[in-house]
């Protein structure tokens, strides 16, 4: 090989661009371009270096090169020689991969720089473009948007519209909304039958509370705190801005990250969104504290709820065998110690409970689930004694301490000292005569003491105070049945089931009325309905099993007794149901598990 490269001649394949045939040619690297001579011609033709286009951006280690002439020359020249490529690169450096890529990078860098400048501008001038667009939206549009959001969620999770709960919720919403803004605020709150612990603000002042959240709250003040927080979001138009922002960012990222793998673009959008969310949460918290103070509701509830989310307070078990409540709320509502501290730092102010006991119970029964009436289901004996001691001490200091009276009555009832419980509840009712929950509790005490007339009077009063109160209606039905007023009892249970179709005990108790009146078939139907409402209803299985055994349906009866034993003893009839089912199985000669 020659050391004078100018003189080196290489062999190539030349395509003339008119047919797909190619012919061999000679190529040499001259001062201003390639000199190409197709065989067998004698004339050398010049391909100027600045007009060359390479099939791929060139690297010095490329083994071959395909060349053509810009802009769209159909003639091609293929030279398979590494030395030729190196020499060519030295003379026509624009063909190199580095130079080619730089050309492609320029538009992208220009766009990136302008986006950066724009964002900096928005940032330094403190502009909120999404919020500005949201404010410009007419209220009608916002409400239509929000209704669609709520409807979409409500398709998956049934709204709970028990009249008493509705009324209680409306009272609380009005109280908060009046404190939220001096101008009338259009707010609508909907409770959905959803075990998730969460609350959402949708556009147009539409707020969703979940059954899970209400069940997990230990007091109405906690629900009020969460509601005030969501009202804060609504006041700041956060949901509307969120939708505008998501649309804008989505469009921008689609535009910018076109076609590239979705992963990058999505991560970007989510990160941007999260930052806004945290800011928005802080604003909503500030509003919540202001609203609660204005409404005269203690902000402690909001702090308690945050602590529950932080894991400092336990969540209630959501029932045997079911999973722990989904803590979805954590994802969008970052609950940080700093937020708790801000709430706790609020100086105390005069406050009253967010809801009356009756309203609170009605709200807890909104979805027709029998939430156990006294908040902790069955306190251990030691706890009850301690509660009695502490409450008695508080009552010595202040005989009119309503909360202490309620606490001691609950503890007495837990220890089956119903006489004492009734006495305390009578004192409590003198202090709060309009509280349906107190009437229900005293009615239950009378019922346990077999003083059915007195029980009926209490349940009657509770139903008059809160017509949608499930436990009140149920209690009156039971009292009427005990007094053999079967028609009245049936009316009560019919009404209860109509308003709370998920309240399993309603069917069970109506079935007992049917049994008293010898209507076995109706009874079987209602026990079956009770099981449909709660598949763990041991008493309903045993009752139905007894009826089936009597009817000669042995196998079905055995299946019912077995199911009764497999179900937990959740209701008062539970222990009886287990005992009876075991006895019947033994009598039928079947080994009980």
């Amino acid at each position: 090989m020659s050391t004078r490269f100018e003189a080196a001649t290489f062999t190539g394949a030349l395509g003339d661009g008119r047919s797909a045939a190619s012919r061999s040619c000679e190529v040499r690297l001259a001062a201003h371009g390639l000199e190409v001579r197709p065989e067998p011609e004698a004339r050398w033709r010049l391909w100027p270096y600045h007009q060359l286009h390479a099939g791929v951006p060139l690297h010095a280690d490329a083994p071959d090169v395909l060349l053509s002439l810009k802009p769209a020359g159909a003639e091609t020249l293929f030279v398979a020689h590494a030395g030729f490529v190196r020499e060519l690169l030295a003379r026509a450096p624009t063909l190199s991969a580095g130079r080619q890529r730089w050309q492609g990078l320029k538009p992208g860098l220009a766009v990136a720089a302008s986006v950066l400048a724009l964002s900096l501008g928005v940032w330094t001038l403190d502009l909120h473009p999404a919020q500005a667009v949201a404010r410009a939206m007419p209220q009608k549009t916002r409400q239509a948007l929000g209704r669609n959001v709520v409807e979409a969620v409500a398709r998956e999770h049934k709204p709970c519209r028990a009249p008493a709960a509705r009324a209680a919720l409306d009272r609380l919403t009005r109280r908060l909304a009046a404190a939220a803004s001096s101008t009338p605020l259009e707010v609508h709150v909907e409770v959905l039958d959803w075990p998730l612990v969460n609350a959402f603000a949708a556009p147009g002042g539409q707020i969703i509370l979940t059954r899970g959240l209400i069940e997990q709250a230990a007091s109405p003040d906690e629900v009020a705190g969460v509601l005030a927080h969501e009202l804060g979001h609504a006041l700041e138009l956060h949901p509307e801005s969120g939708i505008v922002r998501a649309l804008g960012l989505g469009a921008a990222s689609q535009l910018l990250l076109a076609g590239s793998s979705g992963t990058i673009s999505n991560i970007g959008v989510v990160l941007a969104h999260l930052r806004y969310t945290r800011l928005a949460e802080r604003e909503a918290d500030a509003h919540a504290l202001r609203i609660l103070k204005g409404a005269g509701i203690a902000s402690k509830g909001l702090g308690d709820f945050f602590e529950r989310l932080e894991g400092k307070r336990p969540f209630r078990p959501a029932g045997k065998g079911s999973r722990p409540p989904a803590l979805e709320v954590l994802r969008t509502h970052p609950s940080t110690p700093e937020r708790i501290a801000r709430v706790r730092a609020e100086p105390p102010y005069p406050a009253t409970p967010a809801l009356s006991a009756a309203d609170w119970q009605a709200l807890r029964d909104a979805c027709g689930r029998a939430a156990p009436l006294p908040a902790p289901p069955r306190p251990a004996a030691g706890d009850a004694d301690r509660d009695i001691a502490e409450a008695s001490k508080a009552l010595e200091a202040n005989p009119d301490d309503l909360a202490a009276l309620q606490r001691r009555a609950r503890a007495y009832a837990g220890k089956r000292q119903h006489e004492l419980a009734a006495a305390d509840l009578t004192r409590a009712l003198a202090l709060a005569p309009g509280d349906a929950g107190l009437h229900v509790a005293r009615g239950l005490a009378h019922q346990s003491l077999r003083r059915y007339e007195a029980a009926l009077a209490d349940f009657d009063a509770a139903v008059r105070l809160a017509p949608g109160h499930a436990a009140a209606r149920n209690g009156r039905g039971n009292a009427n049945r005990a007094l053999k007023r079967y028609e009245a009892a049936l009316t009560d249970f019919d009404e209860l089931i109509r308003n709370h179709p998920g309240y399993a005990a309603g069917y069970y108790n109506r079935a007992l009325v049917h049994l008293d009146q010898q209507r076995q078939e109706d009874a079987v139907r209602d026990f079956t309905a009770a099981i449909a409402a709660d598949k763990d209803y041991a008493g309903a299985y045993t009752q139905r099993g007894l009826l089936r055994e009597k009817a000669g349906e042995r196998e079905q009866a055995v299946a019912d007794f077995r199911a009764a034993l497999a179900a937990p003893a959740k209701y008062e009839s539970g222990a009886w149901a287990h005992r009876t089912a075991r006895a019947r199985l033994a009598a039928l000669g079947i080994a009980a598990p």
Partner: protein
Amino acid sequence: MVTADSALAATPGMDAPRISWVHPPRGFLGLSLLNGLLRILTLGIYHFWGKTEVRQRIWSAVRIDGEPLEYRGTGGELLRGFLIVFALVLVPMALAGLAAAILLPAGPGRGLYEMGFWGVLLLLSGFGIHRARRYRLSRTRWRGIRAGLSGRSGRFAWTYLWTLLLVPVTLGWIVPWRTVRLQKALLEETRFGDKPFTFGGRAGPLYRRFWVVWLSAVLLAAGTLAASGLLLGLETTRTGARIPDLRNLSRATMAGMAGIAFAALLLFVMIRAWYTTRVLNYFAAETRFGGAAFALSAGVASFVWLTASNYLIRVLSLGFLSPVAEARAMRYIVDRLSLDRAVDWSEIGQNPDALLASGEGLAEAFNVDAF
């Protein structure tokens, strides 16, 4: 004057053309990572240029008689095509969706609207497939001669849509027929230079394997359900519960059910690959160009390995290494593809669509692989 040696084999005889893959010395890994980096740096805009360089490199690795294919598309063209689609399709559809969300309440009207929305989307995807293929072929050259796709994208899109709608109606039995029909529509309109490809494929030979796929899908689904039911039954006899508590299954039962489902899926993937390789090989054998027939020898095991490994490459790299997977897929075909007799290259003239192809109008710019 010294003549340097060339690696070119200069045998202009009438042998069948050699189709081969010459792996680029730098491979595709570095390029993939560099493209990913530059894409992030430019907020994604470089995507189109990166994609173009990947195509240039893949195309140039494909050699016919030792000479490379050439990709002549540019990043600017892809960007322009995307912007047009963005303005004419994506934005109007997003606005239409938003308007529906605000104005239309849930109900039959909304359902009808959503059906129409999806219909348009499916129609557009058929349109997009044809446009993308036309763009890529028009930017593909060998020895300076352009390939191309004639025919109307709209007609292809209709065929694509109505045959797709028949898939659920026929319980999937239309699939082989549809595959052949779409392949025929695409191939018979494909040309290299001024010569068309011909495609003589029929659905009949595919059905000879397809019924096995269909039946195995049904049997495997039924078998999986039955086996899972058996496991659940065992669980209930153990626990004594009347109905198995699906939220509290024992670990053994859950592992058993997952294992059965996975084994069934694996078996189905193998059976499907057995069918797919048959489709590929059959389609190649029925494709002719200039009197020569193609032959492809895709095997089941190698195809399953390619598909599975490419899937993992894409997923595990979050899409950053897609170019590696694309190159591997192209190499898989090229390594196994041949022509059975010589083609007289001098008979093949330049593609007459030349002028149209170089016009940078909407038609050519409509290429977006994204949909």
